[in-house]
């Protein structure tokens, strides 16, 4: 009986295919997903009388989202494409959000409650120009309102109910830029005011029903306009001249245009430099941004400007909020160290404040960048105001009643680079009470789990079990764990903020807005580049914290001075921060550390000089020993040249500066008429390869060509460097190169005819996988190249091995003639790819999976075995035993192998893999607008029990067995006794 049961169990085990996918209740156990929207550009408050309070925002990440004003949660969200940049947002008919995007060529209407797209219109735009959206506010409810879109010289009027073009008018053939549109009350005309060629002011009076131009008046202004204008009343526009030092009041009453110039220093004595007009629509008030403050001016007619208020920096001013028929309200936010004073005023009366509040802010958010104001009715039927504040670090706050109601850390939508850091080692001295508590909790948890396993639990208890699993105390601890699952992910955002995220639940442990990466006099336009591990203490891990290095640049040019900052990885304290005297072109972390375990870094500047960091004599000494073996290369994409260099010292080494000169060793010039560099990829520096041999069928061995210096380069035909479809298959080709970056040797070169980018590639161990489009087959393809070392083939001789005549331990020199063989194969792949990565494990034993960011913003795990070049249509018996899958022409996409299961990482940009301490497991962090973290086991968790393994069940089984043993023993004793008495 027992045997039969055992057999049945065994058969069951063998026949069931173990799936790699998650069960529904495992979601959220080891993964987390965070949704963001990015830095807010426009916000429109929408107060539905019946519905909930919401705000619709559009962001720099091209996201349109509706947020809950009470909590800041996202109701709905649309991520438009990378090129589909939202220019303007407005509300039409009171129920649609209208967005104008892609340089004024696409107009869409979205339903406010659920975010569904109602209609979309493609507009013809002559040339990329500044576009303007204006939804005509018609008081006649129920009548079809028009939406006006100005782009260049064209005006489109669209119906707001269905997006049909009602009329279209071409105003002028010259480069017209409409600046302002306004509509006098209760009339059928609107005014369109703009500049032609930045030197002529033009005013059109247009009938909005049919687009007929009723009147047109032009006047040229000799010193030109800078292209900004602010409408201050019904017949006066104020603009800035080309030098931004004169305010020009333009009156266009009755078709007669008159100019009146005011020299700004006459008005504001401390003014110097350049002024900017703030886009505001206050009645008769003008906001001018001069370098040190914001000045509010009242326009009392064409030739009279009067200063009403000066607001010192750092401060921000909101757009106008129509309050009553005559009044508009606006908010002024002013910093006072860590506090922000909020004042709300009416434009009719600037001396009195309607509302005055002060909020306390933590210091890591920087200055206020944008303010949006909204009003509401308080419980006592008076008017209250709330402001939505966009901070320098791209975070979003809602302030109401002098309190921050909610904050959103939306800087995380624009991660530039990331690294990981280990958590602190657990220190001794944990209190007994804590242990007891956790022991009790542990027992209770396991008891519940046991109930769940035995299907005895009530629905409430099932929910409790799930909650315990999700809020596991263990995964959120701030100490290092045995398996290495708990780490800090240190991310660098475009705003110059560094945040440390805990891998357990994705919470922000600390964040710091780097002072050196903020705009200042020494560094005009700071720009973040990368984050590296600077110091990882092993010997003194108990006493010293690891630190990270942040590299940036002042300005987007390569010759701009670099920024260098070292930040503590546990606390976010800035240890060292400076603007470098040289520029930063490449940063090379070296596999060397100095005596304090600081990693040595080489920074290559724009003149190709190498600067060694840290600048200590100890580091120089260590580096000089290794200098003959340091090589680097630079890829000059525009020139189609790759050059290899070593370092040399010309003359005496300046110990204070540590500057080394480059010595050109090799160059590869791609013929520019037939190839342009499309992509380069290298192996990860910290990748570990477990074995250099690969056992193939029939007990044969192939030696992997494992070199850290392999560079994969893909070039495409210049004609085919554009989008897919821009070239015919005959004009398109792709070359794939494997280059040794020490000697500059081309190890392999292969061409794919009819192939085109975009190319994505990943290099690992001895193989490269790259993804491109095959124009002939009209499909995406993935190719694999595996490179094997032939010079070690002799080592297969056992006798040589026994007699010690092998060269397995001999050092490998890049200068030896490489003797390599290459195996490659191509497969069709359905998806287009946004990003590619490969799993990394601690010892490199576990098999590899490719992580592919698909066009649907999901991450797909594809086993490397599918991309084996040795796959054949009919594998032999021995090949099958080796695990070679029969050849298919396309790669399978198994729905269960999506790492992101049902979630989407909107706007996916990067996938980062980090090995856990447990060999079977890789930590995967993918980022875009959203963040997603999980851990995956490419060969399943063969080296540990799963987390939901029921220890209680095991204990219970053992206890039951022991009991059964005792009972049977007693029974047998009694029986034996009876036997003996017989």
């Amino acid at each position: 009986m027992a045997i039969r049961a055992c057999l049945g169990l065994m058969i069951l085990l063998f026949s069931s295919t173990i799936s790699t996918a998650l069960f529904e209740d495992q979601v959220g156990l080891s993964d987390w997903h965070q949704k963001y929207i990015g830095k807010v550009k426009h916000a429109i408050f929408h107060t539905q009388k019946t519905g909930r309070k919401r705000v619709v925002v559009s962001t720099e990440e091209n996201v349109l989202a509706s947020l809950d004003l009470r909590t800041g949660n996202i109701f709905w969200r649309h991520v438009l494409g990378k090129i589909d940049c939202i220019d303007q947002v407005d509300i039409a008919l009171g129920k649609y959000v209208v967005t104008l995007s892609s340089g004024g060529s696409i107009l869409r209407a979205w339903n406010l409650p659920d975010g569904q797209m109602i209609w979309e219109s493609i507009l013809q735009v002559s040339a990329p120009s500044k576009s303007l959206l204006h939804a005509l506010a018609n008081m006649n409810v129920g009548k079809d309102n028009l939406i006006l879109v100005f782009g260049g010289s064209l005006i489109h009027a669209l119906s707001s109910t269905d997006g049909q073009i009602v009329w279209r008018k071409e105003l002028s053939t010259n480069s017209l830029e409409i600046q302002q549109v306004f509509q006098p009350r209760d009339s059928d005309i609107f005014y369109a005011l703009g500049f032609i060629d930045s030197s002529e002011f033009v005013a059109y009076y247009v009938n909005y029903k049919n687009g007929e131009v009723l009147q047109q008046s032009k006047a040229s202004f000799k010193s030109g306009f800078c292209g900004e204008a602010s409408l201050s009343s019904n017949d006066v526009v104020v603009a800035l001249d080309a030098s931004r030092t004169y305010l020009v009041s333009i009156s266009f009453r009755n078709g007669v245009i008159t100019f009146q110039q005011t020299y700004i220093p006459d008005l504001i004595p401390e003014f110097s430099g350049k002024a900017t007009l703030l886009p505001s629509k206050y009645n008769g008030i003008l906001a001018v941004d001069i370098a040190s403050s914001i000045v509010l001016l009242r326009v009392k007619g064409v030739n009279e400007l009067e200063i009403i208020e000066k607001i010192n920096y750092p401060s921000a001013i909101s757009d106008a909020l129509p309050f009553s028929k005559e009044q508009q309200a606006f908010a002024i936010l002013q910093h006072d160290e860590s506090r922000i004073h909020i004042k709300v005023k009416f434009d009719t009366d600037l001396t009195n404040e309607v509302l005055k509040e002060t909020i306390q802010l933590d210091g890591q958010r920087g200055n206020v960048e944008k303010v949006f104001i909204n009003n509401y009715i308080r419980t006592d039927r008076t008017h209250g105001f709330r402001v939505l504040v966009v901070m320098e670090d791209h975070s979003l706050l809602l302030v109401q009643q002098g309190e921050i109601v909610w904050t959103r850390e939306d800087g995380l939508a624009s991660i530039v680079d990331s690294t990981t850091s280990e958590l602190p080692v657990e220190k001794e001295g944990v209190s007994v009470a804590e242990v007891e508590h956790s022991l009790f909790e542990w027992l209770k948890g396991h008891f519940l789990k046991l109930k769940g396993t035995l299907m005895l639990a009530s629905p409430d208890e099932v929910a409790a079990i799930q909650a315990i699993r999700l809020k596991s105390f263990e995964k959120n601890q701030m100490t290092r764990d045995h398996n290495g699952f708990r780490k800090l992910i240190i991310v660098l955002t475009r705003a110059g903020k560094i945040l440390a995220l805990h891998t357990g639940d994705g919470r922000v442990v600390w964040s710091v807005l780097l002072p050196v990466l903020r705009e200042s006099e020494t560094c005009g336009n700071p720009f973040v580049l990368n984050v590296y591990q600077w110091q990882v203490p092993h010997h003194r891990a108990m006493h010293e914290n690891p630190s990270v290095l942040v590299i940036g640049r002042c300005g987007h040019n390569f010759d701009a001075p670099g920024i260098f900052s070292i930040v503590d990885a546990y606390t976010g304290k800035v240890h060292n921060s400076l603007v470098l005297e040289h520029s930063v072109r490449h940063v090379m972390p070296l596999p060397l550390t100095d005596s304090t375990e600081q990693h040595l870094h080489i920074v290559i500047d724009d003149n190709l000089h190498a600067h060694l960091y840290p600048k200590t004599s100890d580091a120089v000494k260590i580096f000089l020993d290794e200098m003959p073996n340091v090589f680097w290369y630079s890829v000059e994409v525009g020139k189609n040249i790759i050059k290899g260099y070593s370092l040399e010292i010309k003359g005496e080494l300046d110990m204070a500066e540590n500057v080394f000169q480059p010595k050109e060793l090799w160059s590869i010039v791609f013929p520019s008429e037939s190839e342009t560099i499309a992509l380069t990829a290298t192996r990860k520096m910290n990748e570990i390869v477990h074995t250099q041999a690969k056992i193939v069928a029939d007990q044969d061995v192939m030696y992997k060509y494992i070199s850290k210096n392999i560079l994969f380069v893909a070039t495409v035909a210049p004609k085919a460097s554009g989008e897919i479809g821009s070239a015919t298959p005959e004009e398109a080709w792709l070359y794939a190169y494997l280059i040794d970056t020490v000697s500059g040797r081309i190890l392999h070169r292969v061409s794919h005819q009819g192939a085109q980018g975009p190319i994505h590639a990943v290099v690992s161990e001895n193989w490269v996988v790259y993804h491109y489009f095959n124009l002939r087959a009209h499909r995406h393809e993935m190719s694999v190249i595996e490179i094997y070392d032939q010079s070690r083939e002799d080592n297969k001789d056992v006798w040589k091995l026994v007699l010690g005549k092998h060269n397995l331990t001999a050092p490998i020199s890049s200068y030896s003639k490489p003797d390599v063989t290459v195996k490659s194969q191509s497969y069709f792949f359905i998806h287009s790819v946004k990003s590619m990565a490969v799993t990394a494990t601690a010892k490199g034993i576990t098999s590899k999976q490719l992580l592919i960011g698909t066009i649907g913003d999901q991450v797909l795990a594809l086993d490397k075995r599918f991309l084996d070049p040795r796959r054949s249509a009919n594998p032999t018996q021995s090949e099958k035993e080796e695990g070679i899958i029969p050849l298919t022409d396309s790669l399978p996409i198994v729905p269960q192998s999506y790492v992101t299961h049902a979630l989407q990482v909107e706007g996916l940009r990067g996938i980062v893999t980090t090995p856990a301490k447990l060999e079977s497991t890789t930590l995967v962090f993918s980022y875009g607008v959203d963040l997603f973290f999980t851990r995956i086991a490419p060969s399943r968790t063969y080296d540990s029990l799963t987390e939901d393994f029921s220890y209680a069940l095991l204990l219970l089984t053992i206890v039951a067995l022991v009991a059964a043993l005792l009972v049977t023993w007693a029974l047998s004793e009694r029986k034996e006794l009876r036997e003996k008495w017989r």
Partner: protein
Amino acid sequence: MGSSRGRSLVLFTLSTLLLVSIAGGFQSDELLQDDEEFGLEGGRPAADPALSIPTRPPIRGRSDPDLPSGSPDSKSVQFSLEHRFGGSGFSPAGTFTARLKSWSHGGQTLTKLRFSRNALTEEEKGAFERLLKEDGYYTIRVPSNVLNAPGKDFIVSSVRARCIPRDSLDEHFVIHTDGVNIMAVNYGSAGACQYPRMLKYPAKWSFTSFTVLKNSEQAPRTPTFAEELLAGEDGLGEGVKPPEKSFWAKYWMYLIPLVFIVLNAMTQAMNMPEEQAAGQSTQAQRAPSTTVRRR
């Protein structure tokens, strides 16, 4: 000697294969024969370098290489090799001669590359010795375009000087070309370069050069299968029928318990008589002991 012959054989087959793949698809077999050219030159270095200036090493199996061949679609081109010893400037070191072939479809390819190296002057020899001593780089360069030779760009390649000397100075060029453009030169020693590099002077101060011309390979086409094959396979190739397993492989899980049961039964069956036998033997043992005691 044997190993070097083996190596050259590998080299031969390798480059033949390469050239086959280039020619494949658009020309006749005859050209393939013609293209089978990889200059293994200077195999017999001149005994006295001073006598053969400039060195024109004998070329195996070729008649007169310099005469332009009768066909109108090929012409001879020359480009020079320059070298540099460490930090100094580049100086001429030799000349490559190749045949430029124009194809009917408009492309041009280089074939029949041969190389003549100038002998080292005393000055260069001294510079090379200095390089050997300081383990410096010996750098060469060729123009990136063979037609307009002093072109804008040069292809540079370097090797540690200590990798070159053997009996003579052995060098190995693999020139990657694309039409009339040279993309890269893999330059280095003819064989392995030991690390750590020992200071060793060559017996003969003359270069033995091996040159190989390489074009690109065409990637293997993505396999496309017939529809019915695809229909049969459900992604993971389940359509391919697994081969018939042996009886043992199929039913071992049933057989093993069966064998156990049989064995069990057998031992039980054998235990019956054994127990009796054991009882007898103990009695037998007991008997003599008692006798002894009695004695």
